[in-house]
């Protein structure tokens, strides 16, 4: 299936909007921004390393990290978005473990699932190829075809 074409202008707009969002976050909720930067660090690292089109791995890792970061971010928001709360939250190993572990799990799934699928499909196709070759051989022998 063909990838939807994205024009350079649309890409630039998305980048500009992301920058605006980040700037707004830094301006209005700097503690939350710091927390998210730390908890979403695996997604950032993945973004830097992911060269695949569509960056599917980065997306998965980002969503998984986001799932781990949702509860700390909510607690920080309830605590008034203070920088001390950020350090308290980050000093809890479970906070980092959930966020980063989720990202790690997502990354692992992105590696394992395609390999498993490819193996299963390969076996299936090889079996099918053998069946076809056997039928072709039978037809050739039966009807003297080349």
């Amino acid at each position, binding site marked *: 299936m063909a990838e939807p074409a994205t024009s350079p202008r649309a890409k630039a707009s998305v980048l500009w909007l992301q920058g605006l969002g980040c700037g707004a976050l830094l301006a209005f909720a700097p503690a939350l921004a710091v927390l998210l930067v730390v908890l979403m660090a695996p997604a950032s690292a993945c973004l830097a390393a992911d060269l695949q089109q569509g960056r*599917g791995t980065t997306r998965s890792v980002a969503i*998984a990290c986001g799932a781990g970061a949702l509860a700390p971010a909510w607690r920080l928001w309830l605590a008034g978005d203070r920088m001390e709360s950020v350090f308290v939250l980050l000093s809890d190993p479970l906070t980092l473990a959930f966020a980063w572990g989720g990202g790690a799990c997502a990354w692992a*799934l*992105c590696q394992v699932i395609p390999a498993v699928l*490819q193996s299963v*499909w390969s076996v299936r196709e090889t079996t*099918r190829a053998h069946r*076809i070759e056997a039928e072709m051989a039978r037809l050739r022998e039966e*009807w003297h*075809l080349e």
Partner: protein
Amino acid sequence: MPGENGVVATQYRIDPSRPPQLLAGGLRAFSVSDMRDRARALMAVQTRPDLPARPRITLARAGPPVPYAVLPHEYGPGHDLAGKPGWFIICDALPGAAVGPPRAPWREQELVACVLLPAAAALLALQTRGQTHRAINTENLFREAPQEPAILGPFWAAPPASLQPAIYEPPYMARCLPAGRGDGTVADDVYALGVTLLALAAGRMPLAALNDAAILRRKLELGSYAALTAEMQLPQMISDLLRSMLAEDPEHRPSPKLLLNPEQARARRIAARPPRRAQQALNVGGQMVFSARELAHALGLRPDFAYPLLKSGMVEHWIRRNLGDPQIGMAVEDVTRKPAEQNMPEDARHREMTVMLSACAIDPTAPLNWRGIAVQPDGIATALVGCPQEEAAALEELVAAEAVVPYIEALERRPGLAAQRDEARDFRRLLAASGPAGGIRRLTYAANPMLACASPLLANHVVVRIGDLLPALSEAAATSDRSKPPIDPHVAAFIAARAESTVTGELIALKSFAGPKERLAVLRLFGRLEQRLLPGPLPGLAGWLLQSGFATLEDWRSHRTRAALEDTLKQAASQGQIATMLMLVDDAEARRADETGAEAAAQRLVVLKAALDDIKGGEARRAKAAQALGHELATGAGLLGLLGSAISLALR
């Protein structure tokens, strides 16, 4: 096919205690007994392979009786006591020994009572049947004892007059190839009877010291009567009879009916003008000619010299000035100038035609001359059998040129010749047919119904009837190389000539026996022949067809069907059922199904090959799809986690 030694024509057994009798012309006659009626005294005359029996007499056995002549009762293949195969014709045993070469003069009364009257009666009966004898000579006259009437011996075991010494034949017949003399007319029999009477009356053969060519020249030079009776003392009555019986013109000879009354016959005088004789000879290729008959003979004998003489006008000039016959001169002028007026090309065929027609114009009794040989129109078929290559080529050219047609038109007054015009056209059509079953071989077999098939495949068998062919081939298979085809051009031409046209249509169109279609056509031919002729099981031929690849399933596409049919085919071959083999190999419906199956299989193979190529070339595509799906699943799992976190927060 009878295979037992000493049994001929199925039911006649050769008497081993009596050696074969040698008849005139070297034919062998065996004393035989009918296994169903041993009281009959019979004889089996063995025909020669190069001289087929006369079909009109041998095949048409019914008819009015012929006194003082031996007629055939039965015929068929067989083996002599030594096991040698042959074709035999059964007839009544001869009453005694042959009269043979005369050693002492016969008395006039004995000649008339014992030879002339019985022979005339026999010729009259034959004339009633529309037949001629054409083998009357002292060697072919038989009688039980002196003073007994003589019997005319076998005359049907070889082509008419083919075994007759030239002296017994009128010049226009003696000039022809021995096998090409044709049936002739009763007048030719009267001539031969005249020579026989002359020899017996004189007690010696006339012109015995001369060879055939010299005898012919002498007859042409002096006339038959003068040439044969020179220096002979003959009874006056015999001399009178011979004068008319040996007349040059067949119309001047007495009829058999007239000969039955010798006194009346001797008194008959024909007011014939003696042939003109020139004072100065014409040189035709070294031969000096003085009369019209000599000239016609010399022209036919040396066409290479004759044509320039004719075209230069020398012949016409000589006829007008020296021979003094302006009518013949005018006729020759018509023949030689006609092609020039019609702007016809002066090719070899035209030259031969001019010479032949000129000879006819000069001598109305002249035979059909072509490239130095001569035949009678109804003798062309028999002349084709076993003649040397050069003569065969001349005859082939003669047939291809339809030379008989202008010959007959030139001699329209001759009775019975008009029917030969159609035959000449049929001959040319048969000759023009190409392929192994056509050409000169087919023409020879078609024109000679009693000619045996000369195929080397039939090594030890004599096959004359189409019904005997398949059994003979089946027996011959035992000693034949079965890797080679059971058919050759001789067998093909024989079948094409003798079998029904409904069977031979495909055979005639074949150009060879090499290809699979041709081989199937041959199998069809043998299968249909078997169905028509019902010769019984033919295991030899069936096995031969199988082993030589003529009954093959190779071109069947389905291996499974072929394997199933092969066993049945081998079984049918071992049982000698060629028609069954044909049904298996040539089953149209099954073949159609086989072809349809093969086409469907080919289409399915294309589809499968495309699918296989797709599988083999789809590795990268599958990897990409797996990765995309993996990412989607991982994203889904992440979203589930996100949703779970949100729900747990909301529930707190």
